């Protein structure tokens, strides 16, 4: 990854709605170069998706997120990958990580309410043969996500005009 692409990623990470023209001006390069670089990164799956970080607690809709520690028996030949795939294909599952330490997979799920999340664990996750145990933690409040502090107190305290 070259420095140029890195700079584009930094700008898009800050605000994925920046136009290619704006990015080109900011980096002092022709717009075509930016378009090509973004297309390449999309093709290479460096840029996977343009999404929005939402602070759901401000939205009038109930939603719960749970982090589930899962211990599994790895499968001969394919290690943890096959089980991970079985789990991440469920639409409720937002992310799956293979972890070092006391458990194997960390699974993040999202449900409309506590019951829905609990039912996913008991009806879908736990019955999988390779799953030895699960430990479910519900997220009570999100303070920071993807580098963004939700209740950012760092307002602009500067005077409107200064020397």
């Amino acid at each position, binding site marked *: 990854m070259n420095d140029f692409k890195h*700079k584009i990623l930094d*700008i898009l990470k*800050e*605000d994925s709605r*920046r136009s290619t023209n*704006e990015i080109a*001006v*900011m*980096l*002092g390069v022709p717009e075509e170069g930016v378009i090509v670089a973004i297309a390449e990164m999309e093709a290479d799956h460096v840029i996977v998706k343009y999404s929005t970080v939402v602070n759901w607690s401000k939205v009038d809709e109930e939603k719960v997120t749970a982090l589930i520690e899962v211990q599994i028996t790895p499968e001969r030949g394919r290690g943890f990958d096959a089980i991970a795939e079985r789990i991440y294909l469920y639409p409720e599952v937002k992310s799956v990580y293979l972890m070092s330490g006391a458990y194997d997979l960390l699974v993040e799920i999202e449900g409309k309410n506590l019951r829905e999340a609990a039912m996913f664990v008991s009806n879908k996750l736990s019955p999988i043969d390779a799953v030895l145990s699960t430990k479910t933690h519900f997220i009570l409040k999100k303070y920071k996500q993807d580098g963004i502090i939700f209740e950012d107190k*760092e307002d*602009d305290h*500067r*005077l*409107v*005009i*200064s*020397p």
Partner: protein
Amino acid sequence: MITEEEKRKSVKSMQDYLAPQVRAIPPSGIRKFFDLVSASKDVISLGVGEPDFVTPWHVRDAAVYALERGRTSYTSNAGMIELREAIAEYLHREFQTTYEPTNEVLVTVGGSEAIDLALRALIVPGDEVLIPEPCYVSYSPICSLTGGVPVGIETFAKDEFKLTAESLRASITERSKILVLCYPSNPTGAIMTREDWLPIAKVVEEHDLLVISDEIYAELTYGEKHVSFAALPGMKDRTILVSGFSKAFAMTGWRMGYACGHPDIISAMLKIHQYTVMCAPVMGQIAALEALTNGMEEKDRMVESYNQRRRLVVSGFREIGLQCHEPQGAFYAFPSIQSTGMTSEAFAQGLLTDARVAAVPGNVFGLGGEGFLRCSYAYSVTQLSEALDRIGQYMHRLKQG
């Protein structure tokens, strides 16, 4: 029988008590505009001269930790030796100047104090102080307060607001003693390269001038690296290098600055410093040390971000139809509004009331500033884009009359 009128005349007005040199200083043009902007609502300001970043957390944390450990006492008058060593090491590494931390470096309460100390230590009433303009608003008043005579040297957009040896030479009289430099420049964003400096250094030597070089924006350049005036051949002993942490490390409110120069001058400045402020605040010094020791990466990130916004703003102004030279340093664009036929003040006021964008009229920065507008780009890209849109609409309305 004494009439009311006579009674009033016999009582001294408070104004009469004020020192004439203080009374003689006109109110700051920035202050006047500040009051106007503060009274307006929903304004996007491009008016501030400070970073929009908060001091990096590790720097704040160092100060918090210092307080927790009870580091609340005086430090040496000249500043903590560790900090002076770090400053000397940093200046040597980045700008190839060599200073002895024990007697050639003085930690001050912001760069402003360092400038005040230098002028107070050097000026004999009547001495002329040469100041290239447009420039930061404080030099001339501080100079007047010490009894010096500020002499502005106009710089021009056609020279990218660089000081030229010819105009410097033309302003020198037998009373000229000090040249105050501020490059990268607030408000024009101009920088001076080594080639630009050499003829200036020659004139300085020929006329035996001293130089106060305010290098507070040294870290904020976008192409050519900053060349310190003190690093030029033969100039170290003639130069008092003034800088600070405000702009590079987003530490404006900490008021941490420093001055470096010949031991005799630094020790004279130290005398005034120790009898007026004693020493810079200890927690600020600890934070500054942390910034110099571990803050370079964060600083680079901020500079990159200013650079991106600089391009956006300059290109935005040109698209709107306002001529704008490309600023090579600091975080100001200085577009010309001469094509509108308006004065800077009238344009800025119209922009404020009509388009709700605040920018500082160029005339407040002295000679050569009339016809320009200082726009800080230390704002988010979203705010800058919105401000440019509004300025564009304002220009459109002006054209339609």
